[in-house]
């Protein structure tokens, strides 16, 4: 199993969620996070913004559907400018459903 963490623009959150839902991935967790990237934030005149608001979406899925999820997120979160976000994939060894105690590996 893999966990896909996508850090996307807050205004693109709904597009990403609806696109994932359409592909059959309705389950996810979101958090509002603040971050900056390679450009060390934004500079507008003398003002420096280095904590830019983003939304982090976390999706745990089978390894085989990771390419699909990554592709869907990339297409739906794309604007074409710096600040579009990142997608990270990390391993998850086990997952449990608390209600039933069901285990998946």
């Amino acid at each position, binding site marked *: *199993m893999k*966990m896909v963490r996508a850090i996307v623009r807050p205004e693109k959150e*709904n597009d990403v*969620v*609806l696109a994932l*839902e359409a592909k059959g991935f*309705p*389950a*996810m*967790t*979101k*958090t509002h996070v603040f971050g900056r990237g390679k450009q060390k934030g934004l500079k507008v005149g003398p003002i420096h913004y280095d904590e830019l608001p983003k939304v982090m979406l976390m999706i*745990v899925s089978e390894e085989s559907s990771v390419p699909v999820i990554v592709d869907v997120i990339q297409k739906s979160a794309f604007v074409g400018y710096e600040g579009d976000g990142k997608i990270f994939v*990390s*391993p*998850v*060894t*086990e*997952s*449990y*459903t*608390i*209600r039933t*105690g069901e285990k998946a590996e």
Partner: protein
Amino acid sequence: MFVEIMAIIRRDKVGPTMRGLDAMGLGAMTLTTVNGRGLQGGNVMTDIDREVPAEYESVSKITKHLTPASFALSHSLTRPVFWIPKRMLQIIVPTPMKTEVIDLIMSVNRTGWMGDGKIFVSPVEESLRIRTGERGIASI
């Protein structure tokens, strides 16, 4: 050597879960406020959630003055997106304690209704205490 246990649980179960973990000698954890949706896509029905009054056919998570439906209308979305407020608990434990912790979290959080949450286990490669520079088992 270590595993990270990430549990996404109901907000009102945070206290009992923390007390249970304290009793096991695991006082250190990270809590985050998150919003989540499961296989039901975030819909809360009366037959899923006992807290919901019976006269509501279905309710959605309502953020202060904005319902998902009105948000969808004002942002020209095809349909509303529903989210349910949850807490995410992350705890790093030595691998031998893994099953014990998972069993505890499951027994405390199980109500038998949808929305009880999920537990994810992932590997941790290294751990370091910033104050002393200790690494490995001494650092947790």
